[in-house]
């Protein structure tokens, strides 16, 4: 099981390396020139940079205002800040496109991806504020330091790692996003790879571009893994942190947060509802319900399959630590930010070369989900498994149960609530997945995501609306609850913050 998971996980990377050797350096350089690679690099990096900057600024401001100031309606803003997580980036892109045709290209992509990624920064920085009691600030104030000096010397160091760590995550998310940029018609790597594949089934161009994108991603992951996770002392009990009085800035802060809410949540939701109502008379209920059924089936099958393999890996990694299990985890984590487009194309080409009968089957779609989401599943499943005390396993052994029986009778049942929410988390992530489903699904099978994508591509906004609405209702809103549950479990455990960060995100 574990070996199978590892095998599937490394297939895409293996493919890319294989292609690179097959293509050869000369041809690689040629095909990169043919497809305006420099322009794509520039576009991708520019977009990544501005999205990072926006998300880091707004997310940190939201977190500081709602946890460390006397902002009115703080609790409400704490909830509002994570609402955009209910909308996959391509749903948000659809919503804004349907508001105005002016929103597109670089500007549109920047807007939509900033809205989508800001909650990750907000969550990471809020968590840092909560870990850090604020007692340090109070002591510093009594030692005669000004508010500004305290912010610079005490507060900022406490949240710095969270800000930059989540910033890198945002960068990975932006680089690998396919849905939003392609609907916004902004040429980044992911869109170009898809088009190269679509237009001509041009393997070399698509593969060369994928190679460059993967290199960029790996550089980011290297930086991410090197930025160590700061362990701060956990605040004990109900400590009320020092709250900065906003005074005359109160109004300004309210305006800022409310406008962000209007742009990020209110307008998109209103637009989706508006178009749903407008198009009500023409909507094809049979088509919609078929797409819904397919989506739910993929979600269930994908969620169960990925969680099942993930559970095996998580148990191995947490309970049977060895050189071998550490390697297994590292191998799986390497793939944690491979863009969905790249994974999907690797599977198309690999399968066509080796087992053509798998091409365009649901089985292949599930394999791709496994490659895409196994790292997330393992990260989320490790927490409940590691929370089962080893003492109860030992007791179970003395009471006559073997290792395997102990897993079945004690470890898995005791971790069941966490395992169930992890499975739900993976299932919902699968439902929201776009590029792999789009590329690999059997002909004629449509899901909510693919329907939304194709209707929006031809500006059929009212036809697309019910799919957007259903995606928010079926996947987005449940995901908010499941993620909250998972975060709560992680806060109870002593696992490092970094895992909490990316289990929350669906970087693909």
């Amino acid at each position, binding site marked *: 099981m574990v070996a199978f998971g590892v095998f599937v996980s490394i297939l895409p990377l293996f493919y890319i390396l294989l292609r690179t050797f097959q293509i050869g350096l000369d041809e690689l350089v040629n095909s990169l020139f043919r497809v305006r690679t420099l322009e794509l690099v520039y576009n991708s990096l520019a977009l990544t940079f501005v999205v990072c900057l926006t998300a880091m600024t707004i997310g940190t401001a939201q977190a500081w205002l709602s946890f460390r100031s006397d902002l009115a309606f703080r609790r409400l803003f704490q909830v509002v800040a994570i609402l955009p997580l209910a909308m996959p980036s391509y749903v948000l892109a659809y919503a804004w496109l349907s508001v105005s045709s002016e929103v597109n290209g670089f500007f549109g992509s920047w807007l939509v991806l900033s809205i989508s990624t800001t909650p990750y920064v907000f969550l990471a920085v809020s968590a840092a504020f909560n870990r850090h009691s604020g007692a340090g600030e109070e002591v510093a104030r009594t030692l005669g330091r000004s508010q500004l000096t305290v912010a610079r010397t005490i507060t900022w160091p406490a949240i710095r790692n969270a800000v930059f760590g989540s910033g890198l995550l945002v960068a990975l998310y932006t680089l690998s996003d396919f849905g939003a940029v392609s609907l916004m018609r902004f040429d980044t790597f992911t869109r170009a790879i898809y088009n190269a594949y679509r237009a001509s089934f041009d393997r070399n161009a698509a593969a060369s571009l994928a190679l460059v994108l993967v290199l960029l991603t790996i550089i980011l992951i290297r930086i991410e893994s090197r930025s160590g996770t700061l362990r701060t002392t956990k605040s004990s009990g109900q400590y009320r942190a020092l709250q900065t009085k906003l005074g005359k800035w109160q109004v300004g802060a309210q305006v800022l947060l409310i406008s962000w809410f209007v742009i990020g949540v209110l307008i998109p939701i209103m637009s989706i509802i508006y178009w749903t109502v407008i198009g009500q008379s023409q909507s094809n209920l049979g088509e919609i319900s078929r797409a819904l059924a397919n989506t739910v089936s993929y979600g269930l099958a994908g969620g169960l399959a990925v969680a099942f393999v993930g559970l095996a890996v998580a148990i191995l990694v947490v309970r049977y630590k060895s050189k071998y299990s550490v390697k297994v985890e590292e191998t799986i984590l390497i793939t944690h930010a491979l863009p969905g487009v790249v994974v999907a194309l690797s599977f198309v080409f690999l399968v066509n070369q080796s087992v053509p009968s798998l091409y365009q089957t649901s089985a292949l779609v599930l394999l791709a989900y496994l490659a895409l989401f196994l790292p997330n599943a393992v990260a989320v499943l490790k927490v409940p498994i590691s929370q089962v005390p080893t003492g109860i396993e030992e007791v179970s052994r003395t009471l*006559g149960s*073997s290792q395997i029986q102990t897993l079945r009778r004690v470890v898995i049942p005791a971790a069941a609530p966490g395992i169930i929410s992890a499975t739900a988390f993976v299932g919902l992530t699968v439902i929201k997945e776009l590029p792999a489903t789009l590329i690999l699904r059997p002909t004629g099978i449509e899901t909510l995501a693919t329907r939304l994508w194709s209707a929006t591509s031809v500006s059929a906004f009212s036809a697309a609306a019910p799919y957007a609405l259903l995606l928010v209702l079926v996947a987005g809103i449940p995901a908010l609850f499941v993620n909250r549950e998972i975060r709560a479990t992680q806060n109870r455990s002593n696992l490092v913050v970094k895992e909490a960060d990316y289990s929350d995100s669906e970087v693909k």
Partner: protein
Amino acid sequence: MSEKVKLENVSKSFDGVSVLQNVSFTVADGSLLTILGASGGGKTTLLRLIAGFDSVDSGSITMNGREVSSEALSLPPEKRNVGFVPQDSALFPHLSVSKNIAYGLSHLKSEARAAKVSDLLELIGMGDHKDSLPDTLSGGQRQRVAIARALAPNPDVILLDEPFAALDAQLRSKLREDVRAILRAANATAILVTHDQEEALSIADQVAILREGTVAQIGSPRSIYSQPVDVSLAKFLGDAVVIPGVVASGKVSTQLGDLIPIVAQPEGTKGQVAIRPENLYLQPDPKGLAVVTGRQFFGHDALVEVKTAAGIVKARTSGPISPEVGMPVTVWVRGSVNFYPAG
């Protein structure tokens, strides 16, 4: 009484660091052995070797006449028929009290199992809680359930790893008596490890003192307390006044007078005498050479500091009639003393 558990020359090291060396002892059927030692002394390792969580490097462990661990062989825990009660009780969080107790009884038919569980619930006095989940129980209740769960499959020996350490002082002594009674009622053979002298002495049939990975002394609680084999054990097992002395005419001559050694020593032997504070008697005496310099009052008794020719010594006196600070006294030693020849 027959031997239930027997350890012979058991040694264990981790990463080249020796934790246990040549540990040997036996536990008689139906008796309770406490293993007393400072933390880091190898107590828990010893218990884990007996339970089968780790295997011995050399030596052997025999249970009920069957060898369970040696250099060549190590039965897994599930094949050893031992009961285990860890410090934090480690109840299965997803199972009710009665299902926790029934966990090790899956080989029984359901009626037999239910009967056994209800017997044990009665034994630990928790019949009212049979359907409760562990997180609704108090620390003491959890520990009782953990003991019942360990007793359920009739193990050859039940192993308790600091079972009272996580409880507050008052609850601890109450539970200690209860556990002793439960183990006796079940006629169970048990090994309990602890770092608490009072606990080790008060409930054991036999006490083994583990020091730096070896058994320093083993015996009844009374003999361990009154005749420690060396000065450092005397100090470890409670307060002790240690003063130098030399044997002259069959007695040990010290600055607190001529004392009678428990074991006769040759003339002229030099060494140290260890006296328990309760064996010092303070007689109020205006001409006394010693003077009271401090007093810790505990209610039922008091620990009085006295400045004597031998330095400051501590004496335990009855609380209500203990002498005041500043009072001159004469110090007497009651009974025979332990004398440890130097070198």
